[in-house]
Structure formats: C-alpha cells, structure tokens
C-alpha cells in the first residue's frame, strides 16, 4: 500500500567518519517485494532503520531525501511495521497475546477492536498456541512468528524484515518464511534483508544490491541480477544461489583419540552420549534445538562439570593432567589444550583492544613477549584484522567479531578446537574463511568439533557427524505441520561423506532415548 522514494539518500551516524550508507536512489512501488542485498557493511540495516523512522534527526547526518508516501519516515511510522533479527529483544510482554496487543495500544486502537485484531494476526502467522502462552516458553522460530504477528496487527503499508531468520535453526527459519508467504497481504510493500538468498527468493520479485562505497549496484528481477552480477556478488560475500563452495574434507585418515566421552550427559539438558574426538578429524554435532548440543560443547570444552558419565583426555592432549577430567584443569592449562569458541563472540571478550584480546591467551599461558607478538601479528593478518588491531572488540561488526573470537581461541594453539554455531548469520566471505581455517587446522593434525545447524557447513567440512536427540522426557516444543527438518534417529553416528567408511567409526549412541 505504501510506496518508497529515496533520492541521493545517505546517513552518517554521529561520531563516525564513514557514511553508513550513501548515494542511494531507489523507488519501490506499492505492493512490491524487494530483497535488499549487499556485502557486510554496505548499509542495509541503516537503510531499513531510516525507512522505519528509527534514525532520530539529532543522532547523525543525513544527505538527500527518503520518503514514504511522500512523508518523512519519522512522521509515517504508523504505516510501517518492522521485524528485527533477535527474538529475545523485540518481545515486550510476558504473554503472547499481550505482546501483539502492545502495538495496538500504543497506536490508540479502541479497546473493543484490539482482541479481534490480535486473534486475527496470530491466526494469520499460524501461531499454534492460545494467546495466554508465555512468550518465554516459545522457541526462537515461534517468537519471531509472534513478532511478525505484532507487526502485522498494525496493518502496515510497508513491512520491513531485518534478517528475521539469522538467529534461527533451519526449522525455525522455515516457519518464518511460511508465515511471511501466508500472512502478508498482496498489497503490502515488503523490503527484506537476508543473507541466505536462496531461501528468501520465493518471497520476493525484485532484488536491489547496495554497493559498500555508496549507491545501488544492481536492481531488477532476481534471475536478471544474478545472471549479470552473480560472480561478483558471491565474491563480495553475498550468498548467491548456485555458487557453491568446494568441500574441504580430510585428505589423511584421522589420528589418535584426543578426548573420550563415556555416557556423558547433564540431565535434563543432555542425554548420556558416547563420543570420541580424534586428531586430524572434523566432527560435526547436529540435532534439533533442545537436544543439548551447546551443553555438549561446554562439557567437551572442560567448562561444565558432567552430570553423568566422564570426559577423559588422552595423554597426547592432556600431558601430565591425563588423569584429571578437563573441567578440573586450571584455566591456563585448559586454554593451551582445548579452545572453545562461543556462539556469542561478545561473551569472550575481556580486554579493550583487538590486539590485547589476541595477546591475552598466550600471555596467560606463559609465552615470551616476543613469541606473543609473533603469534598476534600472524593471527591479525590471517583473519584480516590488521586494520582493526587498535579497535575495541565491542565495536566490531558481526563478521569481524566472529573472526576475532576464533582467532583468540587459536592464539594458544590448542590441540582441540570446539566451536558452537560459528557460522550463524555470517556472510559468504567470512563463512568461506572459517571453512578454510578449520580445514587447515584439521589437516595440521588438530581435532575440530563443531556444533551446528548449518547443513552447507557440514557438507563442506565435516568428516563425521553425530546427531543428538532431545533427552527423553524433556519439554518438547510443538512442531506445527510444515516443519522441514526431519529428526534423525537418536544419536545416530553417520558418515559425513561417501568413502569415510575406510576410517574406523567409533560407536556413538544416544543411550538416553528409548
């Protein structure tokens, strides 16, 4: 219903030298569905924030104009609905129905109209519960559907979706895509930012590519844009459909066992599971949300005390400490042997600059100052962080923060590296670098364990996979029909690629499932 016109639009956040977005000329007609693309840092999110009227005039400097139906977006907020990336921080109320009603109350919708509109919005997005359902009891995908209902209840003429599936597992992401397909009116204008282009394409009829330096690089129907610019876009980090990444599997057989988990579990989060981690092998741990994958990563990383069973480190990994379980090692000893990369990079940052962050681990483990400098410089270069050496880790972009968090874990040269969802929300360029880096480590004889939902990543890197199932008796979230991730049998240990049978496959079973 709403049309958008940008003329030479640019925005520079207060206190920054660089323009976040600049020189954008764009016209979106009422009812069009646009996928907004661009490499990391091209200004997609800033552009959406401008359209949502969420850039206060005094918070930066504007160039050119942006209009929605001829109005300044700050005065046209009633016509615009937004769904953001993070489910946790866009739900306001404790009960689902109240959350959808929140926007209607703010807009002054008469009380007697509120609940019918809430129920209608919940029905349209296929929300499977009663409106009294606590928002805290919803899965990430369900929370995002609720956020979509909250935006749709306001009957926006323009709907903005800022990577609404980036934080979700594949099943949750599919829920959101189905909800957008089914729930958004044909005359609602839609502008979507999404890294995973292939999945977003069925939702849109036009692709607009922003150029990082400024301006619009390409604009038109998806097939035309990708035929003309596919190669360059893929190189710039956009997930262009059909541009697959060559797999990097192990060229040598796996080495000795580094870590053995024997009926390892932590009720109620993880059912007892057997597992062996080998040198020179990339192991992927898969499974639906709630199966305890992250718990498994923390247990293997020596960060949590096991509830059941044991973790035993081989002398090759543990040296003198082989008789003690990893969770009782002193932290510097642990960091030298097992590196952990957390799902949220910011949890791991301890110091004020990127350089200090990289130097912290080597210093703690008693390296000489010369060798610390050498290690830090090599990692800065390897992960393209040279120019950011003096920056505060909290100011980095998502991709930079991820690269730094991996680099900090590598700085102490641990024999075993454990990563929790390292590719979440990453653009294609960072994604490829991660695959290459982990493959190199593996080929150099390190053990690599990755907890992940990312099927492409598993296909590109994993030599072996272990699929966990939800612990028996856990509160299983309801899965509405249409969920596209069939559960594998409990704890099945399947080869990651043909030909891996010549390698001995250790017995991994999820003994907790009946």
């Amino acid at each position: 219903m709403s049309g958008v016109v940008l003329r030479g639009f640019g925005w520079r956040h207060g206190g920054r030298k660089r323009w976040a977005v600049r020189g954008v000329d764009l016209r979106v007609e009422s009812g069009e569905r646009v996928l907004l693309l661009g490499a990391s840092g091209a200004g997609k999110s800033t552009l959406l924030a401008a359209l949502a009227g969420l850039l206060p005039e005094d918070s930066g400097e504007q160039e050119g104009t942006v209009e929605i139906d001829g109005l300044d977006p700050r005065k046209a907020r009633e016509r615009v609905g937004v769904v953001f990336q993070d489910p946790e921080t866009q739900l306001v109320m404790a009960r689902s129905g109240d959350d959808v009603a929140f926007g209607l109350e703010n807009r002054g919708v008469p009380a007697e109209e509120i609940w019918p509109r809430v129920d209608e919005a919940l029905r349209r997005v296929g929300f499977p519960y009663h409106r009294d359902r606590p928002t805290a009891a919803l899965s990430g995908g369900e929370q995002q559907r609720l956020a979509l209902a909250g935006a749709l209840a306001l009957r926006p003429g323009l709907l903005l979706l800022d990577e609404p599936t980036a934080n979700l597992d594949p099943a949750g992401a599919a829920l959101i895509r189905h909800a957008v397909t089914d729930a958004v009116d044909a005359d609602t204008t839609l502008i979507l930012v999404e890294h995973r282009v292939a999945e977003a394409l069925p939702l849109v009829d036009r692709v607009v590519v922003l150029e990082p330096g400024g301006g619009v690089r390409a604009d038109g129907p998806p097939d035309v844009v990708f035929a003309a610019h596919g190669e360059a876009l893929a190189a710039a980090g956009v997930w262009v459909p059909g541009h697959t990444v060559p797999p990097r599997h192990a060229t040598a057989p796996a080495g000795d066992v580094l870590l053995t988990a024997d009926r390892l579990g932590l009720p109620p989060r993880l059912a007892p599971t057997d597992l062996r981690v080998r040198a020179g092998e990339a192991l992927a741990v898969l499974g639906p949300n709630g199966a305890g994958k992250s718990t498994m990563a923390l247990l293997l990383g020596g960060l949590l005390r096991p509830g059941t069973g044991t973790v035993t480190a081989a002398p090759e990994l543990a040296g003198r400490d082989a008789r003690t379980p990893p969770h009782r090692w002193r932290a510097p000893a642990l960091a030298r042997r097992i590196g952990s990369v957390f799902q949220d990079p910011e949890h791991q940052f301890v110091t004020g600059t990127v350089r200090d962050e990289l130097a912290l681990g080597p210093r703690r483990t008693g390296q000489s100052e010369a060798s610390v400098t050498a290690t830090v410089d090599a990692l800065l270069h390897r992960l393209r962080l040279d120019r950011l050496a003096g920056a505060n880790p909290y100011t980095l972009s998502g991709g930079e923060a991820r690269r730094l968090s991996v680099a900090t874990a590598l700085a102490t040269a641990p024999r075993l590296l454990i990563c929790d969802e390292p590719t979440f929300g990453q653009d294609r360029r960072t994604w490829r670098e991660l695959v290459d880096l982990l493959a190199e480590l593996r080929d150099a004889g390190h053990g690599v364990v990755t907890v992940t939902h990312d099927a492409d990543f598993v296909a590109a890197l994993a030599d072996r996979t272990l699929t966990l199932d939800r612990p028996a008796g856990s509160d299983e979230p309801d899965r509405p029909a249409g969920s596209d991730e069939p559960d594998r049998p409990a704890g099945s240990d399947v080869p990651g690629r043909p030909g891996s049978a010549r390698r001995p496959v250790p017995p991994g079973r999820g003994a907790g499932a009946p």
Partner: protein
Amino acid sequence: MIDLEPVATPGAPLARRNPVAKLAAAMVFTIVLVATLDPVAPAIAIAVELAVLPLFGVRYRVLARRAWPLLAAAVGILVTLVLFAADRSGPVLVEAGPVLVTQGVLVTALGLVLRMLAVALPGIIVFATTDPTELADALIQNAKAPARFAIGALAAFRLVPLLEQEWRMISMARRARGVDAGRNPVAKLRLFASTAFTLLVGAIRRGTRLAVAMDARGFDAGTPRTVARRQRFTRADALLVLAAALLAGAALTTSILLGTFRPLIG
C-alpha cells in the same frame, strides 16, 4: 535462582483484588508500624499478616521459602543486638561470663526485628500474589502512573532472568580464554569486576535493542494509548485498603493501651 513468579492459588479472594489496592493496603499497614519502636504493635501486625495469608491463597510453606533470607537476617540481627548493644538497662535475665542479657536490650532488639518482619511481609505477600503485567496495568489505569515508566519497567523486568544465564556463560567463556583467579582473593575480585562489566555492557546493548523495537511499535510516540486489559478499582478494593488502615490502627491502639507504645519521634 531469582524467583519472581507469583505463587498464589488463582481465585483466592484477596489475591484477586486490584494490584494497586493490594499495594496501597500494604503501604498503609506498614507506615503505621514504622511510627513505633515497641515490640507489641509489630507482633500484632505479624499475627494479622499470617492470619490473612490463606485469603491471599499463599501457603505458609511457600511464604517460608520466599522469606527465608529475611528470617535468617532477623535471627542474625537479634543475636548481634542482644550480645553487643550498648544499652544494658533493666533487670538482668542471663549472665554467663562476658554475656549479659538484660530486659531492656531484649525488648529493644525484639522490637527492631519484629518491626522489620512486619514491614517486609506485606510486600512479599503483594508481590507473591500479583502478576507483574497486571500490576503495570493497574498502576497506569488506577494510579495514573506514566505508561512510559510502568511498561518500560515491565519490559526490562522480563530481561532479568536472562542475566543469570548470561553471567554463567561469561564466566565459562573467561575460563576458556585461560582466565581464572585460582585462590588469589585480589584476582577473584578483579575477575568478578570484569565479569560484571561484560554483563553490564551486554545488558545495555540488549536494553537498547528492546527500546528500538518498542519505538518501532509506536511506544511513547505521543498518541494517547488505549488499554487492552481493563483493571477496575471496585468497592471491594477500597474496603481492602480501609481494612488495612483499621487493623494497623487497632494494633497501635492495643500497644498504647498496654503502655508499651514508644513513638519513633519524641
């Protein structure tokens, strides 16, 4: 574990009262108690509070579990005061070596501890029987509190349980980086401070994102708000406040008639 959820049996006659009425009743009841230093009035007040507990649908066991830190503090204060207070007036009750307990010190200490319990219990009962959303609604509709404040606080409140989880993740991430304090108390303190700082940075970022999301849905945009959930302040609610005032007055009167009343001022 931070335990903030309401625990009342739904439908208990007083738990169902308007949250603002419950809050007002609790305030009226406790303000009167603050005026006196004697142990009798607070003792009567505690008896009244415990007597009305079933009407709020709270079991005594549940209250004991919620209030145990308070009880522990009360015992601690009592022991400290009895042993160390300077006031040693009145007849001697116990004399064992250096320990000297007189009637005066016992009365003062009991008065203080009972007062603390009598003042704290109503608050615990109100929050144990009130849904935070309903409290915010009632504050806006019946007490004319600004929505910006009440809804903002409610939204922030929802993020509190996340902090505990976050603290654990940050601590584990530090250990993975090779940072631990061992047995060194100074290092422990520094680690605690730096973990708290990281937690704070994360909390501010989350709060900012939440504020932007609320903005995007028109919160505090100047349009007069409507309300989806109506809260009514009925005659029964007014009676609850009145009853609280009368009971508190009765406790005070009893204390004066018994001659134990000691005004806070004068």
